[in-house]
């Protein structure tokens, strides 16, 4: 390391070696195909995940708009809907079958394709090598495979929308017998087969990705980058990958059994079933078994979605408050505690399946215990911004929004985690409100925060700020306006997944409220289109990044050139001398991780 240069003391270092770089790496001979399509560069793969995820977010969001139209305006006719959906919306009215298909696909797509692949696929790929100081992933080839498995899974899922009997319609959890018997509903025919194939491919993609993330974080850190000097983003991605690697295989085993039940006459999940008065020969199976296998993944999945958002929010809050993160070790400890607890609470999704109430008591206790690490995290975020020098960039706003949503959504989790209250609240809109706020919207906010914050590193340009502020405020206000009223509906006992509520005397008076929710949902959806416009417009036309370190951050990704090539650093990988959160220390605004600790420095 003789050619030490110290970046980071000042954030306005000029851009070095930009043109030199091309010459330096001239022997690569990258073609369009190897650079943009079958790329093994983690940064390109991250962008592929992001853009595919954005496509799915649009599709999944549009689905919710369409079924919200049905819920808000059950008697109205929309001729354009028939033009768009054909048979699904005969006479301009969404058919019941199509409604269930759309609800199912909305859940599947958003949970797996957007908030798992689109979130951790994008940012784990993008940030892990850049922030730990590695040239690429442990296995760039496997990393590329991970994306292409996801891509094929996407194609298969997309194709299921176009088969005659429609996509799967039995809910995103795919409980048998609806998912196991083709005769059960139109969506359970070929649509369900495609769903299973797609999800199996998706599991493979997640595993390949997760293996790589773990191996890279533990083995490929640069000199001086001890585990306790890692930025919290990396810790979050690490635990996310651990969760995925240990829980997806269990879901996979559940899927294998389901496939055999569907096609090879086994009875793992089926017993004593009548369809149209006909008794089925299946004997000795149990549908509850599937729920156990599913939720053993399903609950960790919630944290697979949430942890990356937590990690990125921690980083962004610290950078934009110009203050060190409060309680770094407590943050890691609480991530660890959440990871462990995530594996021990799955049965709280099954309190009303006939689960032994004695056993239920343990799951209640373990579930409520999650409140402890969650509260530690919230406390640390609030104390991080406390009396900070806050810069309200769009990324910072979304990170703050994340904390707000995490608090309000997390509090309702305490209600739902009680097995006694759950008897009343299960399968109502209260549940919908809870998990949409705490998992869905909050993680979306984490993702937006990440996009706004690291966009300059991804594309060498900024996103438009004004559009970003509009995006934030409408989404923030809209999210609460959509999901807050649902708590009231749920407390009144309004069940989820129903096609129509106006024939029920007890839920008739929610008609206007449903209309209101639907209108806000449409507005929020339109604002997301504005964001997507901003995203693509800025790739080519955005304001150019002229400094190496536009946010004045300490982490390693800002020591790379503005548009880093494959390999990230020109010359040697920088050495790390300190943790990532030296902000406002000893009179310095920030001290990058690459700066050696000087003799007269106060301890951290």
């Amino acid at each position, binding site marked *: 390391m003789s050619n030490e240069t110290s970046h980071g003391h000042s954030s306005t270092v000029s851009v070095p070696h930009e043109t030199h770089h091309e010459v330096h790496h001239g022997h690569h001979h990258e073609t369009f195909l190897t650079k943009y399509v079958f790329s093994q560069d983690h940064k390109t793969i991250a962008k592929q995940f992001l853009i595919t995820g954005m496509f799915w977010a649009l599709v999944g969001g549009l689905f919710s708009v369409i079924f919200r139209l049905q819920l808000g305006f059950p008697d109205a006719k929309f001729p354009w809907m028939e033009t768009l959906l054909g048979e699904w919306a005969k006479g301009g009215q969404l058919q019941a079958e199509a409604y269930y298909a759309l609800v199912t696909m909305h859940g599947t797509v958003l949970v797996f394709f957007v908030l798992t692949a689109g979130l951790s696929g994008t940012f784990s790929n993008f940030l892990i090598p850049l922030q730990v100081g590695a040239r690429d992933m442990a296995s760039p080839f496997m990393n590329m495979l991970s994306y292409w498995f996801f891509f094929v899974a996407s194609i298969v899922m997309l194709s299921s929308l176009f088969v005659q009997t429609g996509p799967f319609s039995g809910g995103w959890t795919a409980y048998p017998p609806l998912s196991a018997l083709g005769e059960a509903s139109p969506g359970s025919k070929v649509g369900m087969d495609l769903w299973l194939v797609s999800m199996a491919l998706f599991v493979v993609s997640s595993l390949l990705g997760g293996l790589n993330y773990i191996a*890279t974080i533990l083995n490929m850190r640069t000199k001086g980058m001890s585990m306790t000097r890692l930025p919290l983003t990396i810790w979050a991605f690490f635990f996310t990958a651990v969760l995925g690697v240990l829980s997806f*295989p269990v879901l996979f*085993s559940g899927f294998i059994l389901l496939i*055999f039940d569907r096609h090879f*006459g086994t009875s793992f999940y089926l017993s004593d079933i009548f369809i149209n008065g006909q008794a089925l020969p299946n004997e000795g199976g149990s549908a509850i*078994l599937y729920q156990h296998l599913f939720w053993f993944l399903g609950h960790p999945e919630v944290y697979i979605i949430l942890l990356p958002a937590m990690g990125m929010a921690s980083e962004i809050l610290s950078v934009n408050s110009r203050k060190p993160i409060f309680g770094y070790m407590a943050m890691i400890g609480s991530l660890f505690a959440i990871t462990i607890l995530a594996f021990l609470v799955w049965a709280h999704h099954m309190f009303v399946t006939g689960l032994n109430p004695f056993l239920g008591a343990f799951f209640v206790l373990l579930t409520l215990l999650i409140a402890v690490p969650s509260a530690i995290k919230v406390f640390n975020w609030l104390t991080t911004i406390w009396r900070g020098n806050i810069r309200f960039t769009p990324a910072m706003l979304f990170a703050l929004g994340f904390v707000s949503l995490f608090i309000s959504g997390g509090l309702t989790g305490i209600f739902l985690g009680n097995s006694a209250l759950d008897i009343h609240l299960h399968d109502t809109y209260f549940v919908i409100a809870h998990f949409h706020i705490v998992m869905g919207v909050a993680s979306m906010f984490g993702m937006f925060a990440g996009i706004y914050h690291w966009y300059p590193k991804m594309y060498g340009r900024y996103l438009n700020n004004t559009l970003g502020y509009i995006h934030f405020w409408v989404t923030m206000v809209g999210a609460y306006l959509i999901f807050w009223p649902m708590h009231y509906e749920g407390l009144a006992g309004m069940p989820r997944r129903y096609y129509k509520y106006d024939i029920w005397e007890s839920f008739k008076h929610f008609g206007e409220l449903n209309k209101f929710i639907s209108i806000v949902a449409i507005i929020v959806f339109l604002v997301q289109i504005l964001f997507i416009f901003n995203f693509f417009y800025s790739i080519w036309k955005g304001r150019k990044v002229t400094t190496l370190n536009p946010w004045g951050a300490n982490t390693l990704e800002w020591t790379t050139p503005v548009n880093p090539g494959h390999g990230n650093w020109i010359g040697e990988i920088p050495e790390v001398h300190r943790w990532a959160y030296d902000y406002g220390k000893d009179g310095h605004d920030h001290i990058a991780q690459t700066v050696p600790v000087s003799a007269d420095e106060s301890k951290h």
Partner: protein
Amino acid sequence: MEKVMSSEQQQKMHPHKFTLWVAIGSITMMFAGFTSAYIVKSNQAGWEPVQMPKIFFLSTVIILVSSATVYLAQKAMAAREMAKYRLLITITALLGLGFVATQFIGFSELWASKITFSESVAGSFFYIITGVHALHVLGGVIALVVLFLRAYNTKTKFYGSTPVETTGLYWHFVDLLWIYLFVFFMLVS
């Protein structure tokens, strides 16, 4: 990308080998899912256990021997005794195929004795759990075939020990997994 690893990193475990360790944890979880489902089901009413086919004892012997041969192959590679190494990985691959063949014979016997998917839930579990394991063994055989082709490639010589080590590790793992399943089915039945 010649300089993927810095000098410090080279002293650590090779990333591929480490990745395999994590993958082993992942595969273990899948079988933990399967076997815990089996335990849950076996405690419910109407459960009729399945008798393990006799030939599965032979499978067990075969896979144990193959673990020994793959170990010796690693040693031979380390000592640069390439002829011995080639012979040993060929034997290991053949033993792997022998394992899968004996499993298949066992399945046919069971199936013939009316233990079918529609007749026996315990049997269905047994077929699927051991079948998925056999697929993992086949994956190992494919890895061995790749090593085999490399060893006989006269144009390029491969002396890196990582592929042999990772394949050997995987092979020991599927062996151990089989021992676990074997004992599991003996005890829970």
